[in-house]
């Protein structure tokens, strides 16, 4: 199902067949920002945290990655960026191997890690100047604007900034070189609601102005709801479900009732069962129906649309 919903990513593959690796790299313009195939990653002695994951992001997509604590979101994001070597499989970013990025590829990537990993002894302003030297492009106007809007004193040592300020600095550092792929791991955990909204606006600007591809994980679902057009659920080491949010809202329903009624409703309305939870007399099935095709609820059969939070709970229980 994941594949069927991503028509934009198909043309990139056709190029690869006859081409050498070099030609493929040359054709990086047509290659998807992220393509992972057969990815398996062990983490801290735990085998298969990521287990046989295939995934691709199309250019300009804004994808929210959801999963429970410990599902492996950070491990996955790090592996996608080439910061962690998979036990099996491969990641390509814009057609190039993620583990061997050249400077041109590095310049296209922006990353905000969960814990801001910045040099604590640098002053904030010096830190940005330092990073600036690595990139061919650097948007000084954006950096200056964000530094003043987000109240980060340039002459303060990074180690003396608050958690929230460090996180904002990390975001500025990731946006400054105008990456084509932006990966954010819980970017707003230490931001207050105003800071979060401001950050979301910045993301929307990036998408509007540059068509940036964005992949981000967060537990703040109201943020995800606003800016992520697509949602991907990571569960048991794989992308269990990926779809545009609108499609999930329009097509996925929670059915509850006696098993016989559930099965009959699924059969009669051509539903696809995504998950089943059997809670004694009232099993709950998560079912996807074509839009407008969901069964009508009655005294015995419940049929409900779900918000993102409920969907997350049902899918990851």
């Amino acid at each position: 199902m994941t594949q069927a919903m991503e028509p934009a990513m198909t043309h990139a593959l056709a190029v690869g067949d006859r081409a050498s690796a070099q030609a493929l790299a040359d054709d990086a313009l047509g290659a998807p920002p992220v393509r992972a195939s057969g990815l398996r990653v062990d983490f801290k002695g735990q085998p298969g945290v990521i287990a046989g994951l295939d995934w691709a992001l199309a250019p300009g997509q804004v994808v929210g990655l959801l999963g429970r604590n410990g599902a492996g979101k950070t491990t996955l994001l790090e592996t996608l960026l080439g910061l962690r070597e998979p036990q099996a499989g491969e990641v390509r970013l814009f057609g190039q191997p993620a583990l061997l990025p050249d400077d041109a590829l590095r310049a296209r990537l922006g990353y905000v890690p969960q814990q801001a990993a910045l040099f604590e002894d640098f002053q904030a302003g010096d830190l940005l100047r330092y990073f600036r030297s690595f990139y061919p492009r650097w948007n000084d106007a954006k950096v200056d604007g964000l530094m003043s809007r987000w109240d980060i004193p340039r002459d303060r040592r990074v180690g003396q900034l608050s958690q929230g300020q460090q996180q904002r600095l990390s975001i500025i550092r990731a946006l400054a070189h105008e990456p084509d792929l932006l990966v954010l791991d819980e970017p707003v955990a230490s931001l207050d609601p105003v800071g979060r909204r401001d950050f979301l606006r910045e993301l929307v600007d990036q998408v509007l102005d540059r068509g940036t591809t964005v992949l981000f994980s967060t537990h703040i679902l109201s943020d995800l709801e606003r800016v992520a057009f697509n949602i991907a659920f990571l569960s048991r080491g794989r992308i269990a479900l990926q779809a545009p949010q609108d499609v999930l809202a329009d097509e996925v329903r929670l059915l509850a009732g006696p098993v016989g009624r559930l099965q009959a409703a699924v059969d009669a309305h051509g539903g696809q069962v995504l998950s089943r939870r059997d809670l004694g007399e009232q099993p709950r099935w998560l079912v996807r129906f074509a839009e407008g095709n969901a069964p009508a609820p009655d005294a015995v059969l419940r049929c409900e649309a779900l918000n993102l939070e409920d969907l997350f709970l049902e899918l990851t229980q």
Partner: protein
Amino acid sequence: MDTDLLFSINPGSSEPIYRQLVEQLRRRVASGQLVAGQEIPSVRELAQALAVNPMTVSKAFGLMEAEGLVERRRGLPMVVAAQHQKAMKTRGRVELLRPVLAQAAAEARQLELPPEQVLALFKTLLEDKGETR
């Protein structure tokens, strides 16, 4: 035009954002708050003001256009479509409530509530003009 006032988002709803936007516009046109020729914010303005993915806003605008609520003009902001000269008659407006009330009625039946009590609650809510939640 203050986009924050024209549209708002109710996060945590099972109603997708694009449909929330379409329904808000539909209600404002039906009530005559917005009439033919009035400008609608651009995708960019609305996406920025609401901090919402531009594709979601585009999708809402596409539906508004398909429904005849708004008209696209080359190179200019979209406007409320020409046929919406004034507010809909109350009979038409009240029909817009049918889907939510049908949903409420279904839930009331599931809860096996006496109709009088449900209607009394609805009346209280109608008279409570201030807080909606």
